[in-house]
């Protein structure tokens, strides 16, 4: 499939990526700034989240309300989220409003006011975000799983803790901004009805003189399997399981993706079939693949009534282990059909494309073509996936459960 993809890295290290999609009227933009929660100092966990809220409360010539009004008037839907590695600024609107939106983002990224008098409100919101998690058991179990499965700071939850949030001062937030907001390794991706040459010029004007030397190096230890139970009087028991896989860019990457999709790539995949369809044990059960540059994991989730939690856990874990016993041709064909159709349908969404451009650039330093991904999907075989599962078998499980009673875990 013909794609119109462009990239340019400016002298200061900022990379601009773009994909022209002629059949749409909108455009999506996506900034990845290397300021994720892994960079939160241990005594200031949650500072990136606080910064991500403060940063839109006034920038450049506009105060908080003027900024919000300016973005709304462009019809921009947006959000600012803190991931492990990046702070992400996403926005989407009609493509004719994109240049004006980029001008405002240049202010937000480069000239935020970070008003001291708004800090108490932002801290109050951050603390409520932490408290609110107690009312979201599904999210809670996955966050705790992550903390346990990855070493700090990789397992950090972006929310921090009530204590670290309470202790933050305006100067901490400003220092954090100053340290991490700079052009080197920042990625801006745009997808939609856009023209490359004027876009490249505009971004050059807005960000070309931005200076800074890049995020500090990270020291992340090794992951090791651990288990935990969180006691809570709930109707359902929540189960989270994680185990190591291979990261994107690894020779086994597509086979690893194939294996996860054999488990959870559709309603006929193994987990849904065995746990829900055949046994009626739960409503939600799934596995997904999560990658970083140097490591990756498979994350599994099931939520089930307390009385059936042990059986749900046993059947789920059994299915993970059963991958090693072989994979059928039919299963691989279904996985291929699912992956190919998502790949093609992604071309209909400006947000999905903007996201993919940026993540490819971050992980691989290039944007994979449609044909490259399609041919890798076509190349999947039962043998190839099975060989991968034998090389990197599901084991060294980290397990977190949440509910009234702990489960019996394998020794």
């Amino acid at each position, binding site marked *: 499939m013909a794609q119109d993809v462009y990239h340019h890295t400016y002298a200061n290290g900022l990379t601009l990526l773009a994909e022209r999609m002629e059949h749409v009227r909108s455009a999506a933009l996506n900034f990845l700034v290397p300021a994720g929660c892994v960079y939160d100092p241990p005594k200031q966990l949650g500072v990136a989240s606080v910064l991500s809220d403060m940063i839109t409360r006034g920038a450049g010539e506009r105060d*908080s309300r003027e900024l*919000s009004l300016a973005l*709304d008037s462009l*019809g921009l839907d947006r959000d600012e989220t803190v991931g492990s590695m990046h702070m992400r600024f996403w926005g989407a609107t009609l493509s004719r409003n994109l240049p004006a939106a980029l001008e405002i983002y240049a202010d937000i990224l480069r000239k935020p006011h970070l008003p001291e008098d708004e800090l108490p409100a932002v801290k109050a*919101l951050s603390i409520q975000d932490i408290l609110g998690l107690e*009312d979201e058991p599904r999210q809670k179990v996955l966050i705790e799983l992550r903390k346990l499965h990855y070493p700090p700071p990789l397992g950090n939850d972006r929310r921090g803790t009530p204590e670290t949030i309470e202790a933050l001062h305006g100067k901490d937030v400003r220092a954090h901004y100053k340290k991490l907001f700079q052009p080197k390794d920042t990625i801006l991706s745009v997808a939609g009805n856009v023209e490359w040459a004027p876009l490249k010029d505009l971004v050059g004007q807005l960000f070309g003189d931005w200076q800074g030397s890049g995020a500090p190096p990270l020291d992340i230890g090794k992951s090791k399997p651990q288990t935990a139970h969180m006691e809570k009087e709930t109707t*359902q028991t929540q189960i989270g399981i994680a185990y190591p896989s291979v990261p994107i860019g690894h020779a086994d990457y597509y086979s690893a993706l194939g294996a996860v999709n054999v488990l959870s790539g559709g309603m006929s995949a193994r987990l849904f079939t065995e746990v829900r369809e055949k046994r009626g044990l739960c*409503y939600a059960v799934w596995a997904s693949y999560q990658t970083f540059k140097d490591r990756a994991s498979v994350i599994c989730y099931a939520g*089930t009534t307390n009385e059936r939690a042990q059986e749900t856990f046993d059947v789920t874990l059994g299915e993970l282990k059963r991958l090693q016993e072989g994979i059928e041709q039919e299963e691989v064909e279904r996985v291929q059909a699912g992956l190919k159709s998502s790949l093609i349908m992604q071309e209909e969404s400006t947000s999905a494309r903007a996201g993919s451009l940026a993540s490819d650039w971050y992980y691989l330093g290039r944007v994979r073509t449609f044909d490259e991904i399609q041919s890798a999907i076509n190349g999947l075989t039962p043998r190839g996936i099975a060989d991968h599962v034998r090389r990197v078998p599901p084991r060294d499980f980290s397990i977190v459960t949440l509910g009234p009673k702990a489960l019996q875990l394998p020794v």
Partner: protein
Amino acid sequence: MSFQKQTLPNGLTIIGETSPSARSVALGFFVRTGSRDETPEVSGVTHFLEHMVFKGTPRRTALDVNRDFDRIGANYNAFTSEENTVFYAAVLPEYLPQAVDIIADILRPSLREDDFEMEKNVIIEEIGMYEDQPTWSAYDNAKKLYFADHNIGNSILGTADSIRALKRDQMYDYFERRYVAPNVTVAAAGNYEWSRLIELVQAKCGGWNRGHVGRYGLQETRGSGKFEVMTKAKVTQEHVYLIAPAPSANSPLRHAADTLAMIVGDDSGSRLYWSLVDPGLADSADMSFHEYEGAGAFYTSFSSEPGQAEENLTIIHDVLSSVQREGVTEAELQQAKSKIGSRVVRGSERPMGRMQALGMAWTYLGQYRSVDDELKAFDAVTLDSIREVLDRYPLDRVTTLALGPLETLPPPGADDEE
């Protein structure tokens, strides 16, 4: 973009918009039946039937259904609301025949007894999952409280007891009455050939039974007006819903109502945002317009630390009554229009989004609404039409439900209410 429509001799309607530049085609079967069409003894049957539809036919076992969808890489699912049950799939254009074949086939399900009993477990798990989510519980209970005298208040999921008590033959009877051809609309959007779609649907659905399907209780309501506190000691935050009357899905005022909800309670730049979220008083606060056949409602909600709930409730009352008294400003209206315009355009760019909009417009209005029709209708909203919404559907006439650790919560301004 071109629109087409055809009704088969048995009364099934097919509508579609083709867009040759799309990479996929989205297909939806809209059955006009939902929880409001249930009697109390079969509470939850519509949603349970939606699950059973995936459990197979004389030609397919449950596993075959899932495998056949996955073989064509379909992005598929179904949902049940108060008044619609929708089965849908997006596929690459070459798989349209298979997609029609599977959905049309499963919509004549076997409802096998052993599948029926097994699936009860899954439904009860789904009920349990929602019970553990206070935000959802607060919404569901508030809806029930507001629509106390109205069938829109019927629970979509039912209860664990109503599901356990349900018999296969009761479901079959409901199916026979509600899933007849004239009560189904097939909507398609994206890259496909219209004449081919008609042939496929005619071949698979032409033999479906006719029948007349009613819907009762289409009157408007102003809600019970009650104020209720549900104490849940294990919940951390207080989750509060306030529901007020609004125009229905068939009302010409619906675009003005949608715009008003955005001005008052969108998640950025709205009155509630500046009053509650920006100052850190509530972790979320919003208002949305829900439209149903014959009735509508504005749902306003917030969640916050329990100790802050009383003050927040007073603030929300002040916001709602000031909007009721003074309306909104021209600047707010223009800002909302920019946001809505962009959302309408973006929502229509993918066949899946477009198909849903087409199907819903047809189900409620019996009309084709192009993207430009919708944009024009939003553009035509004025301060006067918003005033008319407020005059006919007072925003400050609320039914309130709080769910969380609080044992009591005083209704704000109790002494100045009528």
